[in-house]
């Protein structure tokens, strides 16, 4: 008696090859970094999703939570050390005030492009129907409470809740 492996027949359905890619209907974005350049791309993508009628969830974890913590939200800065793409050597990036200076230059430029400051941007995403969440593990680690977060934050959820919510959509980690 011999055993033969049975493989499924290769799909011959013609629609598999020619079908239009299905449009994205939901994105769930994880924000894990607390620098200006760590936070903005996620906010632009979340807002951009809503603008296209795509459902958007944003999950703030670790230092990414600074974007939605009242005491930190207004103090987000560009990393001027260990950020080679910026073109400023780390030794110069260490000079006191350098990070604030680069941040303010960048903020001025963003204002001219109609990119809102972080606080306004977060509220805008919430108003547009995007849902914002803080990560339970990080909240516990930093001893935070729901009251430490801006109003736009819906709730504090576990990673399991996040996956349940993200089901059926795309997950983007930034």
């Amino acid at each position, binding site marked *: 008696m011999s055993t033969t492996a049975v493989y499924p027949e290769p799909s011959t359905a013609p629609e598999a090859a020619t079908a239009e890619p299905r449009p994205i209907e939901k994105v769930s974005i994880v924000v894990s970094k607390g620098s200006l350049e760590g936070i903005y791309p996620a906010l*632009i993508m979340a*807002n*951009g999703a*809503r*603008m*296209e*009628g795509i459902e958007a969830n944003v999950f703030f974890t670790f230092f990414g939570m600074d974007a939605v913590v009242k005491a930190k939200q207004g103090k987000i800065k560009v990393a001027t050390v260990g950020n080679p793409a910026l073109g400023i050597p780390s030794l110069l990036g260490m000079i006191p005030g350098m990070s604030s200076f680069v941040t303010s230059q960048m903020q001025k430029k963003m204002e001219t*492009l*109609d*990119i*809102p400051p972080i606080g306004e941007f977060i509220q*805008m995403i919430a*108003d*547009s*129907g995007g849902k914002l969440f803080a990560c339970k593990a990080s909240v516990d680690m930093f001893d935070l409470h729901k009251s430490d977060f801006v109003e736009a934050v819906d709730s504090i959820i576990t990673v399991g809740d996040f996956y349940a919510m993200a089901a059926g959509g795309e997950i983007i980690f930034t």
Partner: protein
Amino acid sequence: MPTLPMMDTVLDVDAEGFLQKPEQWNETIAAEIARENGVPELTERHWMVIRYMRGRYLDTGNAPSIRSLGKESGVEIKELYRLFPKGPAKLAAKIGGIPKPKGCI
């Protein structure tokens, strides 16, 4: 350029149905585009947004960002999304007969 027969005229549109010649537009066409895009009836609030959108484009050559739409059209962001659930900036531009907005914000 693709064209779209509508009412008793033929419109120049892009692949997604945005008018390429704003002068071909009128309010009856707007109502028809709205119906086809899931907005069955245009209320005065819809018109506020559509007129602002179209006005800004005709004045500056660019459609406004969603941020300025929320600040300057007289309709705030929350309501914008209630009026145009599938994306206010894009949809108001389409209904207002102007090309698709190019910005990311």
